[in-house]
């Protein structure tokens, strides 16, 4: 039963990931007095891309063709480490949050390589920006993870979630909220949302993610987009599950599962609302300002750790 539930969680990631993107789009549309797309639109978009033919540059090598699969599977592997609404995840026993971070890094490594593969200037620009930002985002993310791991006494994602779900909310609130801030900023960077990157633009001066995948079309593009949505979904579910872990199912009873599933949905869409709200209310930062933002994230993580050390556990 545990196994079935764990696999169900991965299927859930695959299905729900696009809907979060839709939800953010919808919020933005509503704020601009537009009706916005229906929820089916994101799936239809993916389906349409999957059916389209592809144009591949004759300069491209096998890296270009293999990348979408590597990216997608590395996102899936990362997904297999994160518990969603059930207390355990599929491969949570075989790895920890360091593995999670490095699976995402694996996908990014090939994503940026593929961007260089066709030899276009946009690709090179996108990949150098992506790598520069992510090398700043990664230590901030790791350190905020470590700050949480310090409190939980374990590096396993399941273990951290379990620890915080058993702890009373108030004593943990202050210092872990610093880690929350840090991870939230990293989420903006990693999922390419507005203060850092604009997913809706193809303006060459500002784009990061879009610049890297400019050469892709058809099925490969669909896989990349999907993998990107999965990554965003994973960051959101990590945030909600670590910082509000209550309501996670620890039994396999149907009613518990149903409740925790609905609770999880409301949490994740609530957090996605925050992301959308930030997108509505901020302008995109200049590229050279983004490192400042990430420095803030790093400092938050340090404060979170330092606070716990000085005040006690």
């Amino acid at each position, binding site marked *: 039963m545990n196994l079935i539930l764990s696999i169900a969680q991965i299927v859930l990631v695959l299905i729900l990931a696009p809907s979060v993107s839709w939800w953010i789009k919808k919020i933005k549309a509503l704020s601009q007095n537009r009706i916005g797309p229906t929820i089916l639109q994101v799936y239809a978009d993916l389906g349409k891309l*999957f059916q389209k033919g592809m144009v591949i540059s004759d300069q491209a090598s096998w890296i270009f063709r293999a990348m979408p699969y590597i990216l997608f599977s590395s996102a899936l592997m990362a997904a297999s480490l994160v518990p969603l609404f059930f207390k355990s995840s599929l491969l949570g026993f075989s790895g920890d949050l360091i593995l999670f971070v490095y699976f995402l890094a694996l996908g990014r490594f090939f994503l940026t390589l593929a961007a260089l593969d066709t030899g276009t200037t946009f690709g090179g620009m996108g990949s150098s920006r992506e790598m520069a930002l992510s090398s*700043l985002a990664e230590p901030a993310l790791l350190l905020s993870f470590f700050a949480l791991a310090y409190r939980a006494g374990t590096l*396993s994602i399941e273990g951290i979630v379990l620890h915080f779900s058993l702890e009373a909310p108030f004593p943990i609130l202050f210092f872990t909220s610093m880690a929350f801030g840090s991870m939230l900023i990293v989420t903006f960077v990693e999922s390419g949302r507005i203060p850092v990157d604009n997913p809706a633009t193809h303006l060459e001066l500002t784009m990061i993610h879009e610049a890297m995948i400019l050469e892709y079309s058809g099925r490969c593009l669909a896989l990349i987009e999907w993998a990107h949505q999965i990554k965003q979904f994973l960051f959101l579910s990590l945030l909600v599950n670590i910082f509000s872990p209550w309501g996670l199912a620890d039994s396999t009873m149907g009613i518990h599962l149903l409740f925790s599933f609905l609770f999880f949905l409301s949490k994740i869409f609530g957090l996605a609302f925050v992301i959308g709200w930030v997108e509505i209310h901020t302008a995109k930062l200049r590229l050279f300002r983004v490192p400042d933002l990430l420095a803030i994230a790093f400092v938050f993580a340090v404060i979170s750790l330092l606070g716990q050390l000085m005040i006690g556990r």
Partner: protein
Amino acid sequence: MELLFIFQLLLYVFGGFLSLFVSAEKKNLNSWTHLVAALAAGCGLASSIMVLFRNAHLSFCFPSGITLFGPLELAMDPLSAFFVFVISFLSLAASIFAVGYSREYQEKKNVSLLGFLYHFFILSMVLVVTAKNIFYFLIFWELMSITSYFLVVYEHEKPAARKAGLIYFVMTHIGTAFITAAFILLYVHSGSFHFDSFGANASPLNFAWKNAIFLCALIGFGTKAGIIPLHIWLPEAHPQAPSHVSALMSGVMIKTAIYGLLRFLFNFLGTPFPWWGGLILVFAALSTILGVLYALMEHDLKRLLAFHSIENIGIILLGIGMAVFFNATNQPIFASFALIAALYHTMNHAAFKGLLFLGAGAVISKAHTGNMEELGGLIKKMPWTAVCFLIGAVAISALPPLNGFVSEWLTFVSLLMGFKNGSAGIRLLTPVLAALLGFASALVATCFVKVFGITFLGTARSEHARQSSEVDFSMKLGMGMLAACCIIFALSAPVITFLLGKVTQALFGSEALPLHFVRTTFLMDPAALSQLNPMWVFVVVAVTIVCVWADTGFVWQRKRSDRAELGLRF
């Protein structure tokens, strides 16, 4: 076992003189003499693995004419056996690579001399890590420095090589001076030249002596290892040597310094002081971050790789620093784990850095330049080299599922074990160091995206690059072996950790059982922070990729032309 070891040493000597005396006319024959080195390395591999598996202790004594210093004793305890293993597997691959690679020098240079120096260079490294006597250790150490100096200036018609050689010569002797000083202090204290007479067997050193010896050893071996304030020779010297020698210099020669440092820290000096660990950690962090930042600015393939050696030595020292710290605070099991991380990374670094240097050598031998700006598009001209180089790049960037990740994970966890122990200072320092390690490895990934992207992807940027072609079989085989090592070292992580556990057990006493670190196929840390199953992860990655691949094939079966576009044939 003893026989294999002796045979290995004799083969190196034989191979050296063979290549010296194969006449210069039979140039084609000469490059084949490298196979003697490969055979010798095979013997070394076999004997060291036997020592590691059987827990045996291999030792023998040659009576020596110089009675003052005692007999020449060579021995392989688990630590020495581990380093012989690292030297042997890399020199096996490098020697096979050299058969093809040294042909490049046939027309221009004296290949006999190259083979001679090459054999004696490896021989001296093996002797350094097995010598049991101060006097002979220093003799072999010097032999290693001299042969590697001549290999650095092998292309002495280039001014850059001569200059690099000079810097190397001076720096390595400054290092040797400090090492000699450290040994002399030990000798004065114990009155014997034999390694066994130090440490637990001698009267305890007092505070000042201990610190003085430690500092001398750290500076001396640190110079050879290339930790950051003492690194200036490394990026100059390593790129100038022929590529298979660069691979050995970067992959294992600087590791002999790690070996020496470990002997001092855990054998000779008794219980360390906690601040030693702190000092090592500071230098380690400095080397890690600055090494990779320097590398990011480089455009020359081999220089860039040399800077990454500094960075990786930093990562190794992070593990050693934690081991010293835990050992000082009397936590042998934790110390053992941290040292396993360091040794594992030593081995992995030999594999992937050797691979990358051989790959760079393959590129240089065909494109005649190591300047990345003039390369490009080589993935189509040299597909095998590209695949091997990519495996090396993924491994050095510490990405799962390859070996770099496993040892980096071990290093991360051994840093984070500082959480549960030690002073508040260490509790704050270690996670920040771990985050810096994360920063460094993200930068390494950035750097290797650049290296691989600019060198192998895109379009050719010069005539040389356009006309390059795939290298010959022996070079492909040499690289392929190391690429296979990168995968095998990841898959067999539990076995390797278990064996390394035995190595550290010999250093920290019977408390630190290997069973604390491995349970069936899981790696786990003694502080119960985390666990990792590298094998499982590897299998799942493979399965997922196959699934996704197959899935897209089946779903779109009706569109044959579409699949043809993808280049898939099934």
